[in-house]
């Protein structure tokens, strides 16, 4: 008996999407305000830390007196409501039960390509992507691309990392040419770049992941550039584990995953040296990239409520900064807010 509901829901979604537009009542793939279906997101493992942390706090809906995760009064927010109630309330969403969020947020994890595919197919509300949709869907026609609404929630300065052993052996910096050669299998031994005599394990992300797409686009100038890493892993975390467990690995990944045993190195490009922790946020750092939350066919109020929370100062401070990503500048913040539906209350 579940089928009819499914059909009905799909139909409703289809209808609503026809009206399109921005900020007009209940459109997009979410249903009516009373419907308790969750907001779903999937995609990029780079964006995942932001959306997932946001969702985690959202779902646990901390009260106003919670200093650690909510704490109104700090970000020009003045309310006595719980966290999700506040943000949802802006669009008229309210929880049916005390303490419950007005709706749950489910954030799945795969990679950017999956995220944009799924949001395009209506399988999720928000598609996380760490590369622009044009690069992720090179075959898609313009009308499809146009239906994507891009919401940037943070900026990543994609670092190059190596295994500890390599770092300690003195490979703390590579030039752009060296890096390109390594991923083209033209340099295969660390000794060629001043390291120990050990084969290079060039670790890549799965094709279709934003990290990979962005890396190719930014380093080789073409999102489809040919590259032959020794090993490709589906998600950032797997890459981090791999680099940590190896003594000869190099990888490109998201900033959030740099840590113990995964040492970021400096990169010299066009005569300028970019050093992690210092100047990766520089405008000129070619590997830096926006972190997107795409919606399809307009942005519904439900989606807006959650995205507004992420883009707000509160979200930037709570979910972007702690994950080592760079927060949006005030101007960009303003611009992103403009793409969301207008709060109804």
């Amino acid at each position, binding site marked *: *008996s*579940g*089928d009819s*509901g*499914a059909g009905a*829901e*799909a139909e409703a979604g289809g209808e609503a999407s026809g009206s399109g537009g921005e900020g007009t009542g209940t459109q997009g793939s979410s249903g009516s305000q009373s419907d*308790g*279906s*969750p907001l*779903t997101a*999937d995609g990029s*493992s780079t964006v*995942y*830390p932001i959306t*997932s*942390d946001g*969702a*985690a*706090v959202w*779902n*646990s809906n*901390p009260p106003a007196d919670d200093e650690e*995760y909510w704490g109104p009064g700090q970000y020009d927010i003045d309310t006595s409501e719980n966290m999700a109630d506040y943000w949802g309330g802006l669009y008229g969403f309210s929880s049916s039960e005390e303490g*419950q*969020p007005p709706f*749950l947020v*489910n*954030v*799945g*994890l795969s990679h950017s390509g999956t995220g944009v595919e799924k949001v395009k*197919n*209506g*399988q*999720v509300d928000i598609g996380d992507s760490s590369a622009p949709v044009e690069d992720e869907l090179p075959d898609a026609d313009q009308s499809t691309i146009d239906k994507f609404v891009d919401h940037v929630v943070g900026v990543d300065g994609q670092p190059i990392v190596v295994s500890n052993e390599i770092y300690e052996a003195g490979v703390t910096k590579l030039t752009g040419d060296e890096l390109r050669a390594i991923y083209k299998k033209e340099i295969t031994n660390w000794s060629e770049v001043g390291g120990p005599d050990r*084969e290079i394990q060039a670790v890549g992300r799965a094709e279709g992941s934003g990290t990979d797409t962005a890396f190719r686009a930014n380093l080789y100038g073409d999102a489809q550039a040919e590259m032959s890493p020794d090993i490709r892993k*589906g*998600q950032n*975390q*797997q890459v981090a*584990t791999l680099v940590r467990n190896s003594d000869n690995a190099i990888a490109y990944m998201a900033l*959030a*995953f740099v840590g113990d045993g995964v040492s970021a190195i400096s990169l010299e490009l066009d005569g300028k040296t970019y050093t992690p922790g210092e100047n990766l946020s520089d405008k000129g750092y070619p590997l830096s990239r926006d972190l997107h939350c795409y919606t399809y066919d307009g942005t519904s109020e439900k989606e807006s409520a959650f995205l507004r929370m992420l883009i707000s100062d509160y979200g930037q401070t709570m979910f972007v900064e702690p994950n080592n990503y760079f927060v949006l500048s005030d101007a960009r913040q303003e611009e992103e807010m403009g793409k969301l539906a207008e709060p109804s209350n």
Partner: protein
Amino acid sequence: MSDAYDRNLVESESSTYQRLAASIVGVGILAFAFALAALFDLTAIDATFVGLSLSNLLGVGTTLVGLGVVGLGAVSYVGYVETTPDRSAGLVPAVLFGLLWFCVAGLVVSQTFGFGALVWLPAALLVGAGAAGVAIFPREDIGSTLPAGAFALLVGLVFLTNVIGPDWAWSPTDFSATFTPKIVVPFLTVLAVLVASWAAGKAYDDFGARGRQTGAYMLIALNALGILSVLVILVAFVVSKGIGPLFEGFSVGASGIDWPFVQNGNQLTNDVNGVFPAIVGTFWLVVGSVIMAVPLAVGAAVFLTEYAEEGRFTQVVELATNGLWSTPSIVFGLFGYAFLVPRLGNSTSLLSGIFVLGFMLIPLVLITSREAINAVPDEYRDASAALGVSQWQTIKSVVVPAAMPGVITGVILGVGRIAGETAPILLVMSGSPFPSKRQAPNVLDISFSFTSSFPFVDASLISQEALLNSASALPYQLYAIITAGVGQSEAFGWGTTLVLLLVVLSFYAVGIASRAYFRNKLRS
């Protein structure tokens, strides 16, 4: 009646010769154990015992074993003890020895002395043929001990002289791997000990038919032991790693049991995160697929055994059943992803997961149920028919109840299998990798009320919501830890592994036990 004639019939007491053979095997077992210890990181290959490095020590062991085995053969050959060797060790050992020595000679000549194929190939062929010849032409006692003992001797000497020692390494050009002593020394030791012990086992029972049996049995029993220890090691390893995280924060208080790992989801505010949503997800997944698949499969089994005539149709069904049985789970997943998901709410959902796992469960239950129903003696059916009871009544009240134990066992074992499936769930059901407790699917939603519009009642039993949304499950939770363990410790993964193992293996244990129980009951 000659003496020899009688001695054949009745064995003498165990002799010095047998004791010698046994003690050679004993030394071998000791070396074997040390080799495994080195392989499993329990001790280092360059650790020193009684003043010798471990590789030297293993060298001493294998040398002893090799000498002993050659000795056993020689003693028998010169007739010092009376044995019953065959004319020749036989073709199979000859081929195996030939191969072994071919490899040894080939590797030594090409890798150690660095000769090209023009040299090493003839050399290896020569040595291999020589070893095979030794196995073929002399009597069995020499033929099966000499090549084996010499191999152990060679290995031992190589270790003793540190030709292969702790600092040795070998990088063959064609393989992207380097063989380190940590792997090679134990591997060679184990190989030498196995080969030599086989020969010693043969000697123990005087060669001949009985000697061959003893040698073969030794290897086969060891193999069974090895397989069993894979299980034991695996489970013990998971338990040792997972028991800590599983019981972190566990307490029994006045308010009942507090077991965070099992009762919590993932939440920022949690002290200890847990896998509650995954457990609930797995529960509903299992319940759902059982509800979907079991009636279907049992019904089909009833039709096939009770109604259908053997023929084309049953053949087609058999093909379908076997096809479903053997279809890789990822193919089910792909099918679900592209066919079911778009039709069931267009998002990954518990319901899609239930369907896909249900499809996978059907053949498992169908095959066992069919066997169980077939095993119901025809006498019951005849007896019922002779009492003037219709076929369906007979099936319902005699056949199916009698087959029930088998069916239930089949269901339990099948459920054990699908409960651990990951690939299909990954494709059709998964959502948040680390769901909070609130995201656990809340499938039961019992409500009943009257409404003013048709059909005037608003009753619900199950929440469509929960069925049509993504959910987690234990195997997926584990996968998520591998792919996305952001901020999760590996310990969380081991805890999850342990829970998953406990769930799946308890299905299996219950299934196996109930089958044994019903079998015994049937027999008595």
